[in-house]
């Protein structure tokens, strides 16, 4: 019963969102409404209400964020907005908060581990890079990414060859994906400063 009511209401919301999307003419508004459509699609999955829903929401989120990043880059190139803006938003909280906020987010992300932990820790690193500036040491991220792959494959061999140590394999795989997601996400934080990215 709850599922049916939820399904009806969500289809109502989807209709409203897509009506607005059809009527919209400005491209940036359309990009923002795509974000809204993604949220409504996630509600549709969340209504399944089992472990299956959680297993489907995680890849949905990954696809959603990569889609928004790709479309926003295409939009910037299409509208020739690749130059750094003359007036960037500067708030006082961006000087005082980054150190403690990033520390909390990264610590909590490491405790969680896995993809969720990687995304949270990555958010902390993005916040720090965005507010405090950065010097490009991209080769460190490349190295970390390489080690993460090695850990990933080692965990795979543990699962296949010595399955009685499965918990060790899970921990290695969780740490590896944390490292990989955090490294890749932290690149977003460096997108603000330069003119060419």
């Amino acid at each position, binding site marked *: 019963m709850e599922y049916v009511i939820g399904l009806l209401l969500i289809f109502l919301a989807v209709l409203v969102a897509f009506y*607005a999307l059809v009527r919209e003419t400005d491209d940036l508004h359309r*990009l923002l409404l795509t974000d809204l459509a993604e949220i409504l699609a996630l509600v549709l999955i*969340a*209504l399944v209400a089992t472990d299956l829903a959680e297993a489907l929401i995680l890849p949905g989120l990954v696809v959603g964020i990569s889609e928004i990043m790709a479309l*926003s880059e295409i939009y910037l190139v299409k509208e020739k907005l690749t130059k750094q803006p003359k007036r960037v938003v500067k708030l006082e909280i961006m000087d005082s908060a980054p150190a403690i906020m990033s520390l909390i987010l990264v610590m909590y992300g490491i405790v969680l581990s896995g993809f969720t932990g990687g*995304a949270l820790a990555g*958010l902390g690193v993005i916040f720090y890079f*965005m507010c405090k500036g950065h010097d490009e040491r991209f080769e460190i991220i490349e190295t970390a990414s390489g080690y993460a792959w090695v850990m990933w494959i080692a965990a795979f061999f543990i699962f296949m060859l010595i399955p009685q140590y499965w918990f060790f394999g899970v921990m290695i795989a969780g740490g590896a994906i944390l490292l990989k997601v955090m490294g890749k996400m932290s690149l977003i934080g460096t997108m603000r400063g330069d003119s060419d990215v």
Partner: protein
Amino acid sequence: MTPEFLLGFIILLIGTVSAAFPKPKTWLNRLINIEIAAWGLMLIMLSYNESLAILTFVAVTGISTFVLVRVIERRSDI
């Protein structure tokens, strides 16, 4: 039907309508209204105990807000 579920759907519908037809039609206003709909989604996830999904959604929403604000910042400049 738990209170979180009802409240979540009410907030989701309000957020969807306000994001679809924002009153001063600016980009930032629409982005803020989408956050309201996201609140509704998080309450619905909470009512079904989908903790991993909530945490990942919070992190990914933070990142996508960074990306979208960057686009809006550049667009508003010209």
